[in-house]
């Protein structure tokens, strides 16, 4: 038994050098805002794009959290901004021959350089190895189809094997309509993988970012041992418009925000982006103690 623990510890050691891939492309390449300056959609403050990126894409005036793409997220979170990517060779199929689906995939690929709406892999945070998944809402609104579901399930399986914690950053409009019921079933697939992790005693930290809705919110994103969110993130099952139509009344402005859900008892904590690495590192470290005092 004891020996097992130590063996696992050894596995925790740093990743083999040759596996390291610097997946955070240079600033020039990933800079989402096209111009030199960006206007905050919330308060209107103007920031230099470079300053904004340095500030983890948080508005210096009102703290508005701009969307972060998957690679920016990885570099902001993991030690040295590095990780080893899993399964980046999986590509979506068009199982229903859905009108225009393949074209849309291709155009999102061209626009973002991403092969799908989630990037998965492993790296270390504050020295602790973790399996991480980061969704990117620029690709098909972060919707979950077969590839997203499969990549997340495989990442969780690897985490079980290696006894690593899992951290997933969600940013998704929900299930991907163009893959029909196959997308729906990815909710079950990812949740079943988490059932295995749960049974194995593994740690899962879910971080919901703007937006986390529909089939993603109603599956893995809500199943964290810790459910966290970024400030101002829209989180919910049904869309605001549908709810307003159903109940025929206007919803409060803060409805379905992270802060609203925190108040309703649906989240563990809302974490400012600048605190994210510290808080996650701390939680992971709290779980790395395998023996009692």
């Amino acid at each position, binding site marked *: 038994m004891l020996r097992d623990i130590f063996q696992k510890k050894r596995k925790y050691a740093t990743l083999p050098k040759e596996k390291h891939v610097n997946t955070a492309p240079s600033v020039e390449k990933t800079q989402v805002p096209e111009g030199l300056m960006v206007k905050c959609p919330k308060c209107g403050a103007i920031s230099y794009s470079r300053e904004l990126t340095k500030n983890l894409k948080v508005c210096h005036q009102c703290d508005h959290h701009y969307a972060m793409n998957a690679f920016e997220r990885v570099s902001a979170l993991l030690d040295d901004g590095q990780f080893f990517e899993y399964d980046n*060779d999986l590509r979506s199929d068009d199982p229903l021959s859905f009108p225009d689906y393949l074209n849309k995939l291709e155009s999102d690929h061209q626009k973002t350089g991403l092969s799908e709406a989630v990037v998965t892999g492993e790296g270390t945070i504050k020295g602790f190895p973790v399996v991480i998944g980061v969704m990117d809402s620029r690709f098909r609104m972060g919707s979950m189809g077969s590839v997203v579901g*499969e990549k997340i399930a495989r990442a969780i399986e690897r985490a079980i094997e290696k006894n690593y914690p899992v951290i997933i950053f969600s940013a998704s409009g929900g299930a991907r309509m163009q893959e029909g*019921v196959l997308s729906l079933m990815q909710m*079950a697939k990812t949740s079943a993988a988490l059932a295995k992790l749960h049974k194995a005693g593994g740690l899962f930290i879910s971080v919901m970012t703007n937006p986390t809705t529909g089939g993603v919110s*109603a*599956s893995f994103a809500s199943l964290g041992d810790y459910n966290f969110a970024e400030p101002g993130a829209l989180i*919910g099952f049904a869309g605001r418009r549908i709810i307003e139509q159903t109940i025929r009344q206007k919803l409060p402005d803060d409805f379905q925000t992270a802060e609203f859900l925190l108040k309703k008892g649906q989240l563990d904590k809302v974490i400012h982006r600048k605190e994210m690495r510290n808080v996650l590192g701390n939680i992971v470290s709290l779980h790395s103690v395998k023996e009692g005092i």
Partner: protein
Amino acid sequence: MAGELPFEKPLVELQSKIEELRKFTEEKQIDLSDEIVKLECKAKELAEEIYGNLTPWQRVQMARHPERPTTLDLIKDLCTDFVELHGDRLFGDDSAIVGGVARFNGIPVTVIGHQKGKDTKENIARNFGMPHPEGYRKALRLMQQADKFNRPIICFINTQGAYPGMAAEERGQSEAIARNLREMASFGVPIISIVIGEGGSGGALALGVGNRILMMENSIYSVISPEGAAALLWKDSGQAQRAAESLKITAQDLNELGIIDEIIAEPLGGAHRNYALAVQEMRKSIEKNLTELRNLNSDELVEDRYDKFKAMGKYNLLSEIS
């Protein structure tokens, strides 16, 4: 025919004509039986033609038929000794989901399902079969009980979807559905999920993580309602018919996609025309699948369910494409 659908009109007209001739024969004492037999033959052919070639949209209409057997109808006819159980022990009792314990062929089982109403009054009471979080949490509680006492679980799926309301969001609609998905994946008892009408999105799937997924012949299962898809894709919910075709939501489509295990045949014209026959077919199917599953131990059942859902999805490897 009561509750006829638009595409059934030619058949209904023919049948009323036959009825007229019958009355005529009786009243006027003129023998028209040759004519009647001919028309009956024609009606039979017409029925087979209509029901044998239903379009996806026509299936949607059948699946939503107000007289279709509901979960409680099916439990009553399939099971004995049913005791309905209520409440989630946290907030309340959601009447859009019903459940309890019963016997199926003498075997104790837990039965759970979405419950729609048959008329407006009943539908309002049942919230049109659209559950709140407490409905899913009641279902979970009953499934945990089944797991504890080693009873197979049979789930009947029939909902447009989880209720999109303010209170539902506040109480954690997403979390309630998600938790059911994860917990259903881990139960060590056989789970059979049967789509009996509409299988709408996550609200349906929350009862759908079974070792076997069966669908009645005229049921649908979809990631989004045809109306919703049409509104999103073409900004026009009137295009629902087109969306129904693109989305591949019929039992036949899902069987071809390998998502479901079996289609349960319905009587000609739909389950609502002959409950007894519909129940008879369903009983056969449940018997067969339950017998197979009862041969597996609890670990095998969990593994079987995992493998089933892990295999769902279509994707390619980059190396295979280029």
